[in-house]
């Protein structure tokens, strides 16, 4: 069992540990796990300086917040004033930014130790973490396997017990995928609930910041620093701070199935067993046309990424890996008509999901397969053979295309001991309602309640 943020906060509150001791432990663990390649920037002296400042606040009896002194890792696409931000691409200079991303600033103001920057798939433009200017990350559950991505370094750092929580970003599952593959918790809020100011974009109408953590409770403890309006990100204009998580008597859950939503027999078995253990009212519901909706997500992704990167791509195409450059060039070749069709399909998907009836959460496996071996380019499951990249985003894109809040919860393991994640999705803006369902599911599956 890895130590949770809640446990660290409790130890700090009763004086059983100091922030410096927590920081020293985390640094030692990071050293032991260096082979996972989870971190791309980690300055031990800087970490200890931040911890000493937290020590002083706590010894005076005036911590900045309950999270004062806990180490939190940050994906390398969040701007930080103390570490360079490269998005693990050679296209960006190794220099700290002039400002923190809003979420990093919130955490820093609350006294959290900004521990280091984590490895990621180049520009977040892929879901394996195999493509990074710093090399691939390795899965703490089995280093021969990928972490998934693009927030793979954050997933590895939490799953290995270096930090209890880390920041990620999610455009097609990039928080949930490594959470599922590494056996931890990952939360993507509704589109527009959390600020993306200072998070380097991939696709602005799909992107969301997210949290990876050792426990669901840890996510709830960090959301006050995460959700809410930010004048620097207009998409959050109607966002609210975290509201109380309601108690739900008997949540109704729809298990999505259909052509394009297949999964391996092993993942299906683990999921089915876990769903029975929840004791919830779960009904299968068919989603038709998943292939078209997936194409819409991919079209929007490539068009928006190409628009954002266009000038840089013209200046220096060699700054991008061959695969990333190919994605960007494909985006330039999609037409306005392609994009209009995609946006129309996006609206249809949102209406379709909303019209599925009276539901509290939609459920799918986070991934159709367990974490693939490093170097495996293809995955076979459910009568299909797809690229490892597509297998990673196989279900997760739905949450981004429709702007839904989503969470991945560990729900079991395969015969070879690799984790299986369960993904729950809520209605847009109803993040607290989704978290209420997730809490109930987690207590039944992982806490024996």
């Amino acid at each position: 069992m890895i130590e949770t943020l809640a446990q660290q906060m409790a130890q700090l509150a009763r004086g059983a540990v100091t922030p410096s001791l927590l920081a020293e432990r985390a640094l030692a663990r990071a050293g032991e796990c260096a082979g996972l390649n989870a971190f791309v920037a980690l300055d031990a002296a800087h970490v200890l300086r931040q911890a000493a400042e937290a020590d002083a606040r706590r010894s005076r009896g005036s911590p900045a917040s309950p999270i004062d002194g806990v180490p939190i890792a940050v994906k390398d696409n969040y701007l930080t004033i103390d570490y360079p931000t490269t998005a693990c691409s050679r296209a960006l200079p190794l220099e700290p930014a002039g400002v923190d991303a809003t979420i990093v600033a919130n955490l820093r103001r609350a006294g959290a130790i900004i521990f280091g920057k984590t490895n990621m798939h180049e520009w977040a433009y892929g879901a394996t973490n195999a493509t990074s200017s710093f090399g691939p990350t390795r899965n703490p559950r089995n280093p021969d396997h990928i972490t998934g991505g693009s927030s793979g370094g954050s997933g590895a750092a939490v799953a290995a017990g270096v930090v209890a929580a880390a920041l990620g970003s999610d455009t097609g599952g990039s928080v949930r995928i490594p959470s599922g593959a590494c056996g931890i918790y990952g939360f993507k809020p509704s589109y527009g609930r959390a600020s993306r100011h200072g998070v380097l974009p991939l696709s602005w109408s799909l992107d969301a910041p997210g949290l990876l953590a050792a426990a669901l409770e840890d996510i709830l403890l960090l959301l006050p620093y995460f959700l809410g309006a930010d004048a620097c990100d207009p998409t959050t204009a109607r966002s609210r701070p975290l509201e109380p998580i309601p108690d739900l008597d008997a949540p109704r859950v729809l298990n999505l199935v259909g052509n394009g939503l297949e999964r391996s027999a092993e993942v299906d078995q683990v999921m089915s067993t876990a769903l029975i253990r929840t004791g919830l009212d779960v009904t299968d519901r068919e989603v038709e046309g998943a292939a078209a909706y997936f194409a819409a997500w991919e079209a929007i992704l490539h068009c928006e990424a190409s628009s954002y990167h266009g000038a840089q791509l013209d200046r220096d195409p060699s700054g991008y890996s061959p695969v990333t450059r190919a994605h960007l060039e494909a985006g330039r070749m999609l037409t306005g008509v392609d994009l209009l069709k995609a946006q129309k399909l996006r609206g249809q998907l949102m209406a379709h999901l909303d019209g599925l009836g009276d539901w509290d959460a939609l459920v799918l496996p986070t991934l159709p397969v367990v974490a693939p071996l490093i170097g495996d380019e293809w995955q076979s499951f459910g009568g299909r053979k797809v690229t490892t990249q597509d297998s990673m985003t196989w279900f997760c894109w739905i949450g981004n295309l429709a702007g839904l809040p989503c969470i991945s919860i560990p729900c079991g393991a395969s015969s070879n001991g690799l984790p299986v994640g369960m993904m729950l999705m809520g209605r847009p803006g109803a993040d607290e309602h989704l978290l209420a369902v997730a809490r109930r599911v987690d207590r039944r599956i992982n806490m024996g309640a």
Partner: protein
Amino acid sequence: MNGSANQPELSRDQLVRIAQTLKRIRDGLASSSGASEPAHIFIPGLQDAQVKQAPKPTQGSK
């Protein structure tokens, strides 16, 4: 397919990948059972212009 303004040229592997991506997306978009096109599309500038040109209602008229 010339790629970016400043070369290096795209490799054969990249060109194949691009072609596959475009085909997959267009096949996927075409596979939609497809609701009909909307009867009207909101175009902000056009609607604004129409509002400006519309005759103002006369006070007291019924």
